[in-house]
């Protein structure tokens, strides 16, 4: 019987392009690039450059995944109602929000299904309006019970969570939490610590919020089980105006933000339900950035570090992901 070795004189298979779905550990020769390649598994997370936004933005709302995401509202400045859609490669401008605002909340599973809520109007007032995106139009739906900006948000279009933020009510650092069931916002139990410019990840039944500002930048982290908030181990770096991604109160990612009275952070921290662990830094440190996706496949866009607002997008791949690597013999 003919063998591969006997036919080709080599134990490694030749390809002109890399195979579509190689098995982990599979080695091949790329005859176009003249390199030996292996399908490996990442041992740490890393950020790669993604397609640039058409317009630099900060404090926008975000929703979706690494390959299907939305950026809505935010501040150029001025505050805008502009919306862009990401397909994993490019951002495209699409239909605007009805209401221009920045520092708003966002939830949603993709670039065709999202929810925008709260925020700050161009004149500086706090907003409670909610808008629903169906892939074609933004439609106004029932308002938040409490108008606020710089809140944490997570979830999907039919099940979202809004937590904390900044309000004209006293105290201005809010601990208020509201849960969205697809039709109405319901006020549920407060966070343990009121603060704004925090970030969140998860769903309306399993979430984690982290960082933020009250009288100083905070490393606080709280876990939501659908009923109550529980204080957990802190972030390693206290910061605010950060962003996050993740799917539950046991799987989240925190990145960027402002660690003091000035400056910006590139730090990325991974939450496993018990502890925050430092992982690969952002390539561009910045504040007031927007995150979406999961803790394994995350997306970050916009922000500033320093102004003007940036068009930068970065894509996160966490440890354990398949990755084709070139074997170096130098």
């Amino acid at each position, binding site marked *: 019987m003919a063998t591969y070795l006997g036919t080709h004189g080599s134990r490694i298979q030749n390809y002109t392009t890399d195979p579509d779905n190689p098995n982990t550990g599979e080695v091949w020769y790329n005859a176009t690039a003249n390199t030996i390649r292996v399908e490996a598994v*990442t041992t740490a997370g890393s950020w790669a450059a993604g397609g640039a936004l058409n317009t630099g933005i900060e404090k926008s709302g975000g929703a979706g995944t690494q390959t299907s995401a939305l950026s809505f509202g935010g501040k150029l400045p001025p505050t805008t109602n502009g919306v862009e859609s990401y397909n994993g490669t490019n951002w495209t401008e699409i239909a605007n929000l009805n209401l221009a605002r920045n520092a708003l909340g966002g939830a949603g599973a993709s670039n065709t299904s999202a929810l925008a809520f709260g925020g700050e109007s161009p004149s500086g007032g706090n907003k409670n309006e909610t808008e629903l995106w169906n892939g074609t139009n933004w439609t106004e739906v029932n308002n938040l019970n409490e108008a606020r900006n710089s809140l944490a948000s997570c979830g999907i279009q039919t099940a979202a969570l809004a937590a904390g933020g900044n309000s004209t009510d006293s105290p201005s650092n809010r601990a208020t939490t509201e849960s969205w069931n697809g039709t109405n916002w319901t006020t549920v139990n407060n966070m343990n610590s009121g603060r704004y410019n925090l970030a969140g990840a998860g769903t309306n039944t399993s979430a984690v919020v982290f960082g933020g500002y009250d009288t100083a930048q905070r490393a606080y982290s709280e876990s939501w089980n659908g009923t109550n908030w529980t204080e957990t181990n802190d972030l390693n770096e206290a910061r605010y105006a950060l962003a996050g991604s993740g799917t539950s109160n046991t799987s989240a990612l925190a990145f960027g933000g402002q660690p003091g009275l000035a400056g910006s952070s590139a730090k990325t921290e991974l939450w496993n339900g018990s502890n925050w662990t430092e992982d690969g830094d952002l390539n561009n440190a910045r504040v007031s950035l927007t995150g979406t996706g999961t803790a394994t496949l995350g997306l970050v866009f916009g922000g500033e570090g320093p102004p003007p607002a940036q068009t930068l997008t970065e894509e996160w791949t966490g440890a354990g992901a398949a990755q084709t690597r070139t074997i170096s013999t130098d």
Partner: protein
Amino acid sequence: MAKTYQYCVAENWGKGFIDHVESSRITFAGYPGNVWQVPAYNKHGNLWIAKVAGTVKTKTEAQAIVDAEVQAAQAVWDALPDAEKAPAVGSNTRPADITLEE
């Protein structure tokens, strides 16, 4: 003293500018003015600079580019009405100076 970092200027074109393999091999730090910091005396850093057609800068040259960008941002912030500077704590703080490392 041997330098830890090297600097270049390169415009981020988006997807593919830094890929996951590069990002997992070396630490990148982007600064204002399209200034990029990568490890010095590092094959992967050198390969990346070549890939993006980066213009190599000394630390002093890179610092001057970053300073100009930060000072421009500070001037914009300083010209804001006091009402917009007032809520500076917790948001909209004055852009900070950035000091590059050797």
